[in-house]
Structure formats: structure tokens, C-alpha cells
């Protein structure tokens, strides 16, 4: 085994750090917390202008180590990359399944960081059980178009996005996984509305509504009625690559606070800090292995599920331990006098909570490991 990054990967890391130092200042981070919109335009623009978003795009012929490095560096630094993750993911889908016209029309905006995209997937009645979604796309042959009606939940970035990547049922008679179509639609299309969903974390999410939204065939991604295949490609990009590096910034912030407060001399605290340091290494190694598996063309198998469950659960344990250890000061929000790590401890407890839900719940991922890695019977 080899744990060395190549010179070009080290160079990418240096470039990332330079851009983040310049564009993700304390004020910028504060603004994301105030607004609930986890997006820093100057940062994403700089990533676009330097070609980093294009490098971080998933798909055949792309270097998955680039993709991992960009998101993990952002995560370690504390730079908001949610919007970057979404544009690279959808650009990757379009590169693979889009028409030439779609690639020309949509990809440059996404990969420059100037246009954002949100995901319209989950619905009030269809979360882990995604095929249960009810949003309907009805084909209207007279004008070669579609009429879409429905509602989506957790459309994060929906209020600032230029595009929505939407999954709809187009042929309800085609069985559980048949008859889906995926679309990429301008958010300015008449009939789309956005309501905020405020969360216990600092982030704002959204519910989005689609009332007689009329779109043409140019909005269909991949083959009509073959949307489940598109979803398979997209979810394979996502699983286990992002959001597994949160332990490093948590431990950094905790250790600096513990050093300032003198808590770091307490053996009970040092014992736990060492444990978290191990878990941070394990989370990183498992994620690097997922990336390596994709790079060798073997993956993705269940490696992403393995990394995702471990890393997100370890993050929650660590955050909750850090908060309890900081006592009352661990309850205080950003910039309150005496707040542990200036409020980051409280933030991490809130921010870590949905990590075991989004991008595939821990239960769905454990099912995946049991069924696909162990070959045990599927019982649902």
C-alpha cells in the first residue's frame, strides 16, 4: 500500500488552501451561519475560475482523487462546499448522459461556479424509499413537452439555485423502478415555488412546489422513463466521498479550546481526544480506499457505505462528547462570551445530527453492506 499523494495532488491541495485562505474569511463563514445558506460565492467562483470544479467533477476519465481532495480540503478548512458538491455532481451526470446541446448550454455555468443547482429528489412520502415519490411528469405529445406537478422536500440551496435536478414519475404503470424521468429545469420556470425549511442546524433547507410546470424535451436528462438509471449513476458518485472528514476540524477546534482553557491537561480528556484522532484517521483511510477503488475501475461497491456509516457516526459521537466535556460553555452559540471554541462545539452537535440521514441513512447503508457485501437476504 502507498499513502503518498502525487505531486499534482499536492499541488491541488496547495491551490485549494490558497483559495480558501483568500476567500473564506471569518466574516464569510459568519454570514453563512447568519443566513443559513451554506454558500460562499467568491469561494465557488474562484474554484470555477481556477478549473478546480471541472477537475472535481465525477465520472469516467476523471480523477476521483481530485474529487475527494477538493471536498475533503474544504471540509477540513471549514469552507462551505455544499453548492460545489452539487454542481460537480450534476455536471458529471450531464457529461455522461446529457445531450451535446445540454452540455453546451448548462455545464459551463455550473463548472464556473456562477450557476448553482439543487436536487429535487426526496418527497414528504418518499425519503429512504425513494421510488415512492409522487411527483408526476405527464408527456404532452402535441407540443413535445411535459407538465410537472408535485412537491419536494430538502431542496437545499433551492432558494439560490439557478437549476433544479428533478426526479419525477413519468409512467406509473411501469413497476417499482420503471417509469421515472430526470429533468434539469431552470428555477425561474413558471409554476415553481420555494418555501424555507428552517433546521436545528444553522442551515436553511427548502420545500419546493411544482404546479403545472411546463418544460420541453431539452430538459430531460438521459432517456425519458429511464430515470432510475440516471439516479443510480448520480448516487454512486455521492456515496461515501463527501462529509467523512468532519472529525479533523472538530478535533482541531476542540484541541485549541482545550489548550486555552487548560482542559487539555486532564487525562480523561486526553484519552478521548486520542480516540477521536484514531477515528479521524480511520474515516480518512476508509474514504481514500473508496476513492482508490473508483480510480482502479473496480468500484464503487459497498466501500462508500462502509466509510459513510463509520465517519458520520464517529462525528456525532465526537461532537456530543466534546459538548458534554465542555459543560455549560459547550452549549453557547457562536461568539457568545465564554462559548467553547467560540461556538463551534455547539454547532458541531447540531451540524452532525443530519449526517447519518442525508445521502443515505445509516440503516439503508447497513442494509447495503449486508446484502451486497455479505450476500445476506434482502428482507424488505
Amino acid at each position, binding site marked *: *500500500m*502507498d*499513502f*503518498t*499523494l*502525487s505531486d499534482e*495532488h499536492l499541488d491541488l491541495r496547495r491551490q485549494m488552501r490558497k483559495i480558501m485562505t483568500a476567500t473564506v474569511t471569518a466574516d464569510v463563514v459568519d454570514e453563512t451561519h447568519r443566513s443559513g445558506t451554506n454558500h460562499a460565492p467568491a469561494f465557488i467562483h474562484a474554484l470555477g475560475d481556477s478549473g478546480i470544479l471541472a477537475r472535481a467533477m465525477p465520472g469516467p476519465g476523471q480523477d476521483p*482523487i481530485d474529487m475527494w481532495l477538493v471536498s475533503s480540503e474544504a471540509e*477540513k*478548512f*471549514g469552507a462551505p462546499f455544499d453548492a460545489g458538491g452539487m454542481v460537480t455532481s450534476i455536471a458529471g451526470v450531464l457529461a455522461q448522459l446529457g445531450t451535446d446541446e445540454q452540455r453546451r448550454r448548462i455545464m459551463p455555468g455550473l463548472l464556473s461556479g456562477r450557476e448553482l443547482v439543487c436536487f429535487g429528489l426526496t418527497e414528504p412520502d418518499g425519503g429512504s424509499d425513494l421510488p415512492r415519490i409522487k411527483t408526476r411528469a405527464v408527456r404532452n405529445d402535441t407540443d413535445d413537452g411535459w407538465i410537472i406537478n408535485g412537491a419536494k422536500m430538502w431542496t437545499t440551496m433551492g432558494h439560490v439555485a439557478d437549476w433544479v435536478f428533478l426526479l419525477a414519475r413519468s409512467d406509473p404503470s411501469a413497476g417499482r423502478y420503471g417509469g421515472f424521468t430526470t429533468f434539469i429545469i431552470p428555477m425561474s420556470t413558471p409554476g415553481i415555488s420555494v418555501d424555507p425549511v428552517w433546521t436545528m442546524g444553522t442551515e436553511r433547507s427548502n420545500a419546493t412546489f411544482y404546479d403545472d410546470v411546463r418544460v420541453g424535451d431539452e430538459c430531460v436528462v438521459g432517456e425519458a422513463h429511464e430515470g432510475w438509471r440516471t439516479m443510480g449513476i448520480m448516487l454512486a458518485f455521492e456515496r461515501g466521498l463527501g462529509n467523512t*472528514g468532519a*472529525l*479533523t476540524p472538530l*478535533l*482541531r*477546534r476542540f*484541541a*485549541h479550546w482545550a*489548550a486555552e482553557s487548560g482542559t*487539555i*491537561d486532564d487525562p480523561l480528556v*486526553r*484519552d478521548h*481526544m*486520542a*480516540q477521536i*484522532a*484514531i477515528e*479521524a*484517521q*480511520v474515516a*480518512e*483511510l*476508509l474514504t*481514500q*480506499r473508496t*476513492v*482508490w*477503488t473508483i*480510480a482502479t475501475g473496480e468500484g464503487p461497491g*459497498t466501500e462508500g457505505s*462502509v466509510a459513510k*456509516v*463509520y465517519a458520520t457516526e464517529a462525528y456525532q459521537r465526537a461532537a456530543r462528547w466534546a459538548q458534554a466535556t465542555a459543560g455549560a460553555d459547550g452549549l453557547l452559540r457562536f461568539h457568545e462570551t465564554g462559548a467553547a471554541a*467560540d461556538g*463551534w462545539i455547539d454547532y458541531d452537535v447540531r451540524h452532525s445530527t443530519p449526517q447519518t440521514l442525508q445521502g443515505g441513512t445509516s*440503516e439503508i*447503508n*447497513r*442494509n447495503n*453492506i*449486508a*446484502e451486497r*457485501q*455479505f450476500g*445476506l*437476504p434482502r*428482507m*424488505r
Partner: protein
Amino acid sequence: MALEFGLSPDQESISDLFSSFFAKESPSEIVREAEPLGHSPALWNALQGLEAPGMGVAVAAGGGGAALADLVVVAEALGRAVAPVPLLEHLVASRLHPEAAIVRGDQIATIALHPADAAGLWRLAPAGAVAHVVIGVDGDETVAVYAEPPGAAPANHACAPIADRSARVGDRVVLGPASAIDGALAEWRMLTAAALVGIANAALEIGLAYVREREQFGRIIGSYQAIQHGLADFPALIDGARFLAHKAAWAGDTGRVGAAGVIDMDEGEITEHAALASMAFLQAGEAAAVCTDRSLHYHGGYGFSKEYDIQLYFRRARGWANILGDPARERLRLADMLWPPPGSAARGAPTSSAGKV
């Protein structure tokens, strides 16, 4: 240079060789026969036939010149079979003291994990019951002591050939200052980690085989989600510990030892051999404990009976790890490497980048 999580072709060959060797020469009947001492002289002789005892010693010193990355593969294969031979201890000791009889394996060597006490006793040295040579710290020196092994161990949880040995009775050779043993202790942690990974992996295989066969309420118990989800935690524990052991080996093989390695807690970057060896040891101990515990539990009462193999693994998961002492103390030692206490002589002189928050 680039990320690589597969074994090299050479390592694949070593893995195949030792996996089939232990599968053939050390099935669970042999493990049981070797109890309670936990040592099979016949198996040791067979290992000598493979020139395994000296494989980690430099070629110039008459050994096999294997890299640490190769020894990690051997240790995992040994752990998978819970083979009753003191190969890990011997590999470590032979690298520190590559004397001809030790390199050949005619004399079994081991290391004491803690300095001798005031009476000059090394308490419960691993392989102390069967080793002809024990290397350890006595006062401010690292010494090798040659003496006839007792050939018996106090009755213990893992049926391991542990024993108290004297640092002063016998032929005594000074190898260097007390710190001369530090590298060997890091290697012991790393190889023991790999062996514990082997145990954890075997616990997964044994558990899976059982839950695929055993039926309750009209279907195999492996179809129940409670059991599926318990097992689904194993791969992260096993693979995480395995990668840490391999990363420790990589760091050692590439000279990332002490100040030549990186410990940067702000960036979460750790490439220093001894710190990684400690992390691997702790993670593997946890993996082996959890996986053997759950796998035994899924056997129901049968797992508790001596007839089933899982109890062999359950006991060694604890015995092979806890011989070093309380894992919490090892974590405190690790913490001192990662966040050196003020005024301490920082081991490995950790580097740290500017304090961003």
C-alpha cells in the same frame, strides 16, 4: 507515488503462502491441542522450514530482508488462524538482535513490553514461557537475557505462552540504552495490530457462516435486520485497523520515523511510524474485541461452548491486546505524541501548522 490500497504482487504471494500454510498446519484442532500453553513446537519447526523466523532481518545479517509491509501481511495470516507460535514476538526481537541462532529460529526470541521491576523481573512477557532469549529494558539499558525457558505459563484467558522472566538471571548482553527498544515496541504494536485484524476478520467469516446456516422462526437468522446491522459494522472496524497497520508499515519502510514523520493535528495529517503503530494497535484491539463479541453472541449459547471455534478467537482478541496493559493508558501515551504536554521532550518532534479555526 500515489494512493494505493491493494497489496503488491509480492505481498499477494506472501499472503497466499502464509494463509495456506496456517490453514493447513494450524487448523483449530492444532490450536486446541496446543492449549493451555499456546505453543506448538511442530508448527514452529514448520515455520523454520519456510525460513519465516528470520524473514524480517536484513539480508546482510543472514535474514530474508522482508519489509515491514510484508510482515504485516504475515501477522494478519497468523491472526486469522490464531496460530500457536510466537512468530510476531520473534520477528520483532530478531530485527533488534539478529544473532545467527535467532535468525534461524533455533532459539526463540521475544521482547518484554515493560521495563523490569525493582526486583529485576519482567512481568508476563509475551512468549516468555517458550523464549530462549528475552530482550527488554532493565534500568537505563536495553538488554538481551539468555536463559532456559520455563516451558509453562500461568493459566490465562487466551492460553498464551506468557511468563515472568528475569532480567538479571542468565547470560546478559547489553544492546544499548533503554530507548534502543522503542523501535521494536512500535513494531510489536504494529504486528499485533495486524494479527488482531486477522482475528476480527476470522470472527466475521465464522459469524457469517453461522448466521447463513442457523434457522430460527423458520428462516436463517442472517435474514434478520438486527443481526445484519450488527455485522455490517465489522468491515469499517476491520478495514480501518488494517489500513492503519499498513500505513504504520509504510511509514516505517519509508523512513518516516520520529522527526522524519509528520504529526499535524491541525490538518489531521499523521505519517509518523510510532504514532500510527499505536493507533493501529488500539483500533485493532477494538475491532477484534467487538467482532469476536458480536460473532460469539450471534452463535447463541453455542458460541460459549468450547466446541465452537469462535471462543478461541474471543479469548485471544482480549489476551493478545491486553497483555500491553490498559488501552486507556496506551491512548494517553498516544495523546502525548499527538499533543505533547508542555515541557515534555516531544517524541517525533511533531510539527503543527498555524492555528486556524
